C-alpha cells in the first residue's frame, strides 16, 4: 500500500480514528508523518502518549455528560489545583491527586480504554492502607464463606464468619 499523502513511498503507519462511531483510516509513510508534525511512536519527534490520550478524551460516550441538564464540560474544574477538565483533556495529565475525585465521573471510560480496567487490584501502602487491606481481606473471606456454605462445610463457615466479624470490629476501631 502506498502512502496516501505522497503516493510514492510505502505506507508504514496505519491509524484508525473513530469519532462518534465514524471511522477514518490513515495510511502514511514515515517521512510524511514527520512532515505533518505527527511523528510516530518510537521515533524522535514522537506522536506522544499524551497527544494520543487527549484524542481519546475528546470522545464522549453516548448518553454521557453531554446529555441535557449535565454540567457543560468546560465548567468542570478541580477545586484543589484549579485544573479544568478541558485543560486535562488537552494535556492528558492531572494537576493533583484530587483531580481523580473531581473528574471522577468522566474517568471510567478513559481508564477503561487505556487499561481495559477501572479498579486497582495491586499493592496497597503498608502504613496508610491498613484499612483497605482489612477490607480486601474481608471481601476475600466473604467469598470463601459462600463457598463453604455451598459445600455445606458449616463448621469452617462459622470460623470464617467469626474472623470476618473480628476484622469488621478492627476497621471500626481504626
Amino acid at each position, binding site marked *: 500500500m502506498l502512502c496516501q499523502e505522497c503516493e510514492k513511498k510505502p505506507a508504514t503507519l496505519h491509524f484508525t480514528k473513530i469519532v462518534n462511531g465514524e471511522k477514518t483510516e490513515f495510511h502514511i509513510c514515515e517521512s510524511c508523518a514527520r512532515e505533518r508534525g505527527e511523528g510516530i511512536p518510537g521515533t524522535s519527534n514522537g506522536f506522544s502518549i499524551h497527544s494520543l490520550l487527549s484524542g481519546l478524551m475528546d470522545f464522549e460516550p453516548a448518553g454521557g455528560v453531554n446529555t441535557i441538564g449535565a454540567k457543560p464540560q468546560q465548567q468542570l474544574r478541580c477545586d484543589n489545583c484549579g485544573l479544568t477538565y478541558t485543560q486535562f483533556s488537552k494535556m492528558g495529565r492531572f494537576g493533583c491527586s484530587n483531580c481523580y475525585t473531581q473528574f471522577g465521573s468522566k474517568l471510567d471510560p478513559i481508564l477503561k480504554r487505556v487499561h481495559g480496567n477501572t479498579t*486497582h487490584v495491586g499493592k496497597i501502602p503498608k502504613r496508610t492502607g491498613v484499612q483497605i487491606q482489612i477490607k480486601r481481606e474481608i471481601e476475600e473471606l466473604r467469598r470463601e464463606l459462600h463457598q463453604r456454605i455451598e459445600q455445606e462445610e458449616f463448621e469452617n463457615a462459622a470460623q470464617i464468619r467469626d474472623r470476618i466479624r473480628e476484622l469488621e470490629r478492627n476497621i471500626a476501631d481504626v
Partner: protein
Amino acid sequence: MSKRSYVEEALSDWMRGNGPDSDVVISSRIRIARNLSGHPFPLLATTQQANDVMEQLTSVAESGKLNEHGQFETIKLSQLSELERRVLVEKHLISPNLANESRSGAVMLSENEAVSIMVNEEDHLRIQCLYPGFQVKEAWGLANRIDDIFEEVTDYAFDERRGYLTSCPTNVGTGIRSSVMMHLPGLVLTQQINRILSAVTQVGLAVRGIYGEGSEALGNLFQISNQITLGQSEGEIIENLHGVARQIIEHERAARQRLLDESRVRLEDRVFRSYGILSNAMIMDTKEASQRLSDVRLGIDLGLIRDVSPQVMNEMMVLTQPGFLQQVFREKMTPEQRDIRRAELIRNQLQRKTDHGGV
C-alpha cells in the same frame, strides 16, 4: 562516589553484559511512579512547592534509610550542565523528561547505578531499578523494597479504587512500568520481527526504541514493557512481561541458529564486514555505529568473534552517543566532528579489546 564519576565513567553495572540470558537481553528495568498526597503534581507545582517535595524525598536518602540497598548520592539537576544531564540520560540513569527539569529536579543514585530515584519528574517520585540481563523479577523485588522505605515516612497519594494516583492516567493503579531491553538481530534479519512485535502489542505490552518513549529502535535494540498498570496486580504484570520476553528470547535464539545453519557465510560476511568497518572507518554516524555494533555483538554471541567481550559492545553503545562523546573528548562538537570522534573512539576501543577481558 562523586557526581563526576556518574557522568564520566561509561560503565554502569547493567552494561557489563554478565546477567542471565545476556546474549539476548541487555537489561531489565522496573520503574515505580508515586506521588505525595496533598501536593500538586510537578507539572503544576510552583517552585516552592516542588522544592518542598524535593526536600521531603531527598531527606529519605540522607537519613540513611536506603543504606541496606547501597550508598546513595543525591544530585540536583541544577548542579549539572546540559551536557552532563544528557550523559545521565544516555546511561539510562535519568529520563529525558527529568533532564529538562533543571528547576526542582533531583536524582538519588546508588553507587553501582542499579538504583536511580528521580524526584519531580512527571511524578514526585520515580524509583528505577536497572539490572543487567534478564532479571525483571529481581529488579521488581528491589524496587518494591525501596518503595516500602519511602512509604514508611511519606504519605502517598493513594485511592482505594484507583490505586496509586499518578500525573498521567496511563500510570495509575500500580504505577509500575517493567521493561526489558532486547537485542533482536536474528528476528530482524529473518524478517520475523514485525510479526512478533505486533503479537506482543496484542497482549498488552508496548515496544519502543532504547531511549524510551519517542526514540528510534537503533541497532536492533527493542524495549518491551507493560502498557497496563490498572486492573492487574504487580505480580501479574511482571509475570506477563516475563513470559512474553522468555518466548522472544527463544525465538531470537532459534532465528540465530537458523541463520547459522542456512546462511552461515552470509552471516559471517555481515559480521566481519561490520567488524572491519568499525576497526578502520574514519567517519561513523550514530545510526551506522548502532547497526555495525549490533552485527559485531551478534558475532560475539554466536562465537564467530572470539577476541572481543560483549561488555565492550554494551559500553560502546553508550559511549558513542552524542552526549557521552562530547564528555569523553571534553569539547563541544558539530555533528560531523562527532562522527569523526566516534569512529576514532570505536577504533581505539577495538584495539584495546583484550584489556576488557576478551579471550
